């Protein structure tokens, strides 16, 4: 069997990827997020100048400005922006409650980065921290949120759906409801405190059943690794409600990886950063590796940073810690080149 031509195949796939483009919902959601970010900066939208208006004309001009602003402002329903609407849309807003009575509409909440599509009667409202589904079926696309950013929240009758960037559908009835996850990850936080994670393809109904005994509890995050407990009313197999993948822990990175990183920093001439990274890593690595890293640090101080006092001090520490070691000759040469004095430049290898 002949090997396939990597370049040719990769190019073909690139063409397909370019043709696929960016789905409209995602495009709108990203734009909403960008607007949120750049809106926080100064002077995003130039303010209308009112300073020079003569006092007597303020009233009339203000009315004109308000009229123009009203005409120019994007269409809104309540606190949400309308980005698409069907011709037959009939919707009204009462005390902040947006009621879609007929037709289809796509709404964007730029604060939370949510795009919400309604194509059948539904009711929802913007609330602090998110959007509440009062009734009906709504499709959500939520722009991906950075790790550490607060989740976007969709409030429902018996809890809240917390989202880090995903696509899902909510059906809210009078006595309960359901969420169906299409993509990404969501966390349902019941009003009783139970937490259930959903994975793509799964759905969850509420209200949740009464809490199970502790050993079968579905509340998460679980304290220990996944004793595969069944989740309440989730479909499509065991949803394995579990904590999200742990983020950075205090585990040292591998030596290979660290050396790659150092090489990259060296390549960029970011020697001080490379030295910092090495200094932090040396103590975390086993002796053979830490000796290598210590040697790298000494080389940086000697040849790139050209800092004789620190380099000499480092080589002395290196010799105390590793004795002669693998780099004995190189260390001695470096010390001689630096003119290190009062140290161990001329000591016999291995002496403390």
């Amino acid at each position, binding site marked *: 069997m*002949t*090997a*396939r*031509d*990597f*370049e040719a*195949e*990769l*190019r073909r*796939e*690139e063409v*397909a*990827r*370019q043709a*696929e*483009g*960016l789905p409209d919902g*995602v495009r709108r*959601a*990203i*734009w909403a*997020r*960008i607007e949120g*970010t*750049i809106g926080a*900066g100064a002077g*995003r*939208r*130039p303010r209308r100048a009112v300073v020079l208006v003569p006092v007597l004309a303020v009233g009339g001009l203000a009315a004109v400005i308000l009229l123009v602003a009203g005409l120019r402002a994007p269409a809104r329903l309540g606190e949400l922006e309308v980005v698409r609407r069907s011709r037959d849309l009939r919707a009204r807003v009462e005390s902040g409650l947006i009621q879609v009575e007929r037709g289809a509409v796509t709404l964007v909440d730029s604060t939370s980065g949510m795009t919400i599509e309604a194509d059948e009667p539904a009711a929802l409202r913007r609330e602090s921290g998110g959007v509440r589904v009062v009734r009906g079926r709504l499709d959500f696309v939520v*722009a*991906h949120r*950075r790790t550490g950013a607060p989740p976007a929240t969709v409030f429902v009758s018996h809890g809240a759906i917390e989202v880090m*960037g*995903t696509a899902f559908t909510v059906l809210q009835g009078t006595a309960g409801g359901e969420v169906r996850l299409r*993509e*990404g*990850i969501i966390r349902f936080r019941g009003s009783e405190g139970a937490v259930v994670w959903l*994975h*793509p393809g799964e759905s969850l109904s509420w209200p949740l059943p009464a809490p199970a005994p502790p050993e079968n509890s579905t509340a998460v995050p679980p304290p*220990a*690794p*996944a004793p595969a407990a069944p989740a309440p009313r989730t479909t499509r197999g065991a949803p394995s409600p*579990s904590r*999200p*993948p*742990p*983020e*950075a*822990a205090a*585990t040292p*990175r*591998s030596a290979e*990886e660290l050396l*790659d*990183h150092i*090489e*990259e920093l*060296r*390549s*960029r001439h970011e020697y001080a950063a490379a030295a910092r990274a090495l200094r932090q890593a040396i103590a975390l690595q086993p002796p053979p590796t830490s000796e290598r890293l210590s040697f790298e640090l000494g080389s940086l101080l000697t040849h790139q940073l050209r800092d004789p006092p620190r380099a000499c001090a480092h080589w002395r520490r290196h010799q105390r810690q590793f004795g002669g070691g693998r780099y004995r000759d190189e260390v001695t040469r470096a010390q001689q080149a630096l003119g290190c004095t009062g140290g161990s430049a001329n000591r016999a290898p291995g002496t403390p």
Partner: protein
Amino acid sequence: MTRPLRSDAPALTERFEELYQQYAGQVFAWASRYAGGRSGWAQDIVHDVFVRAWKHRHELRDADVKAWLFRVTQNRAFSLLSRERTAGRLRQAVQLLWHAEPPRTPEDALVTQRSASAATAALQSLPGQERVVLGLKILDGLSQREIATLLSLSEGYVSKLVARGTARLAAAGWSMDRDDRDRSGGGRGTS
């Protein structure tokens, strides 16, 4: 449609949105090369690139916008992938310690779904930096020198990344013969 971005007109935001509408798909496609099927990751790149474009809107010349966006996208992807490599290994290590089931986050699932294309999947299997460098070399036809300039790396380091990535792909059974033709020559320029 290429109008200069440099303007104090009140319609600047609208013009910027036009710019976004024009290039967002392209930036997303560039980012998706390296995303391993993670739509959210590529979306993050699009967001970051356009926020940066907004900050530099007074310096951008319209004729250069696409090249500027390309450069910023590649650099952002390169930086993020460099950081991720460490975080990913930490996650795996911690999960192994907990005897948890193999990593199966929703993002993993998306990777599986969307990286079905064979060559793209092979590219995704490479460490992030090799991924970007090989992508630039193969898909954008950049020379190693051009890649080094674009990513602010030394040519030697780029060469090493290319060699490593190529070797891994060859070891995985791919034909990489074309690689030799571009050892040091000029590239075809950005897409």
